[in-house]
């Protein structure tokens, strides 16, 4: 039973000793939305994404994904979610095809479908011919492609993507972007964190900007422009204004000394 929201965070807080990574975060993301999570390094984006999947337990508050409580029904939630971590630490002693085989089996993808999907994805992301190589010989981009395929393979209802286009070549990045659009039409929700503001602006229906563990701004591009009092501006200017880091000239001048 799914609610209208794919994701609901209520006062979600995560502390690491004295460091507050995420502070009383309240956020709802509608089903079928492509949501972008932006913020400077250490602002709590990755921690938030990990909380959605139960990879990090919130210190306080609640996290609901696709109508399921992440802490109470972790396995059920994971079955419906595809996750791409920022730095894919994957089993390097497996070959690409063995890894995807493993993932498909873990998610219970039927054998015939497994073969078809793996073959299609490998072809689309130009990994054909290298699928038999051990992953420890892959470049970062190839590892990212394998991570992306493993997230798409079981046709999840929610995609949690931490810097999904990092290290990808332009062709593959384009394919992934188009693919996310296609999934959106099928009702799949995507939540991504990225530092590439152009991608967020072009791809996301709504954007949340995090700063020091809190949600600083939330909305579509027009709403963000309004919030930052910067009509006609791009996301970069809005981001820098909202995070209070727009005046960078002094920094550059200092560096040039």
């Amino acid at each position, binding site marked *: 039973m799914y609610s209208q929201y794919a994701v609901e965070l209520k006062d979600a807080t995560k502390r690491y000793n004295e460091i507050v990574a995420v502070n009383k975060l309240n956020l709802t993301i509608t089903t079928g939305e492509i949501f972008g999570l932006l913020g400077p390094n250490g602002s709590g984006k990755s921690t938030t994404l990990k909380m959605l999947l139960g990879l990090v337990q919130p210190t306080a508050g609640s996290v609901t994904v696709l109508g399921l409580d992440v802490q109470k029904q972790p*396995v059920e939630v994971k079955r419906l979610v595809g996750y791409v*971590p920022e730095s894919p630490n994957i089993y390097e002693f*497996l070959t690409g095809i063995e890894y995807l085989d*493993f993932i498909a089996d*873990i*998610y219970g993808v039927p054998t015939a479908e497994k*073969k078809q999907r793996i073959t299609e994805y490998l072809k689309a992301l130009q990994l054909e011919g290298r699928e038999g*190589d051990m992953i*420890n010989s892959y470049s970062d981009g190839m590892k990212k492609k394998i991570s992306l395929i493993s997230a798409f393979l079981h046709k999840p209802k929610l995609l949690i993507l931490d810097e999904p286009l990092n290290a990808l070549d332009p062709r593959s990045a384009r394919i992934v972007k188009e693919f996310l659009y296609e999934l959106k039409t099928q009702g799949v929700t995507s939540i991504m964190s990225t530092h590439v503001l152009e991608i967020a602006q072009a791809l996301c229906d709504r954007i949340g900007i995090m700063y020091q563990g809190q949600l600083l701004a939330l909305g579509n591009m027009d709403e963000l422009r309004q919030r930052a009092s910067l009509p006609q501006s791009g996301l970069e200017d809005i981001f820098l204004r909202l995070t209070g880091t727009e005046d960078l000239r002094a920094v550059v001048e200092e560096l040039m000394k």
Partner: protein
Amino acid sequence: MNWKNVFFLMQVERKSGRLIRGKKATRYKENTILAYWPYWTAAIIGVVGGLIANYIASAVYSSAAISNLPSLSHETISVFVILPTIVLATSLVFTLFQQIQLSGIKASTQVMYWLPVTWQEHTLASIFANLLGLPIGIVLGFTSGIIIFSVFNGLILQALLTTLALFVAAFMASSITEILRVLQVRFVGAVYKSSGRAAIWVRFIGSLLFFIIFYILYFYVTSGVTSFLQNLTQVQSALWYLPLVWLALTISYIFQGLVLQGALFISLSALFIAGLYYLAVLLNKRFGLYEPPAITIQKSGIYTPKTGILGKIGFSSVEGAIIRKDLRSFTRRRELLGIYIAPIIMIIIPLMQSLGVTSGSAAGSANPVFIAIIFFLPASFMAMLLGETLIGEEGQAVWRIYASPVSPENLVKSKYFFLILFSTIILLVSGTIGTLFYRPSLQNTITIFLEAFFVVLALGSSSLTIGFKGADFSQTRRARMIRQEWSLIGLPVCALVGAAVLAPLVPYVIASFASSFIPGLTASTFNLVISVVISGVISLVITAVFYRINIEMAKELLRKAQV
């Protein structure tokens, strides 16, 4: 030579081995006293050893009954002169073992390859880093002991000279290790570069052979270690042409007042060390750069998924996937080789002993101890080691388990089945070899097989609990898999579990032995059957209890995922 670079690089190598583990740390503050505990401990042991030696020497030499002893200083110096060779040999063995375990970690320290660092500086830093491991602990242990002893016996100058020689000997050993390490990188790299499934088997069998040969040599040498040490002074003199004994000969000649010979051997030692260093630099320049492996397992082409037999024997898709993944992990990961090697060594040692290879005893003698060793130890060790490491071996990729729809029951079932499967295979192999070699009676063969299997079942379950509790997912320098303290706790726990399973057999075994001395006493087959049944029940109870604990542990592990 930029000595600051050498110092900084050396610090990086040393500190990388001291990273905190097992916790998601936000800050790291090093406690100097704790970080250097092996050194302090070695020095304290040395001081205590020196005091005890002095006490014993005083007692012996003050005894009126023993008046025809050689002088204390003569005896002491005769010990001093063999110390450099002992330190060199032990340092070499330990640093080599360390490097074998750490091979491949150069990938994590590649940063030095694009820093403005010369190969000379890199090599020297690497040698010092080797030296600052166990060798320096060994040297500190010996030097503190001999200095304390010498203070009481007026031999302080000789002790200081020996101390200097010990440090140089450790440096010499570290240099040799560096050379062998680079050669190993070259060899492994060559194997890695050859693609195909065969490369993995070449690597596996090659490493196995290396360890087996090394262990055979080790046991061969250590079986005669006492006589070797007693004769070391003579051996050193006879082998004067070997550079490894030149340091010892140097101090030996200086203590005898033979300054010219002393100067000659000290010069030769210096030349030898310089030669080792330049050879290490040369090899590092040529082969030192670690190249990531590029093994191709499957030829590209049409992908055909395999259904496998695991599904047919009752395993779910998730469990089958984890078992297959672990199987590949254990046949491809170099750092897991040790787990295979230990049982193989345990099969070889009793066979060698029985064949008289190391002890000179009669060949093929059916010693009950050897029969017990060959039947019980390899499979039990396999179960224990696999149980303790199967959780931690997930390493940093454990997020994949956390992020996947894997239930605690899935995780425990797949891990437990995998370890029982492997341990049973080892039991069948070692048991078959033991049966063929020692030819026990049919009744004894069946009993031992059953008992060993019961032990494996219980050990597998209990050691998996240790593995959950002490899982270490850090992979800094090398995959650790289990925290040291839990590995140590695992030993008595497994010993107790093994003893509990075998306990019902004790009366029968005693009766069997006693029957040859006490007329009329017999060990009946009925008693044996009862003992085996009780043993099986105990094993199943232990297995079930620990299995439940394992599921609770798995729930905790998955619930507390902190990636």
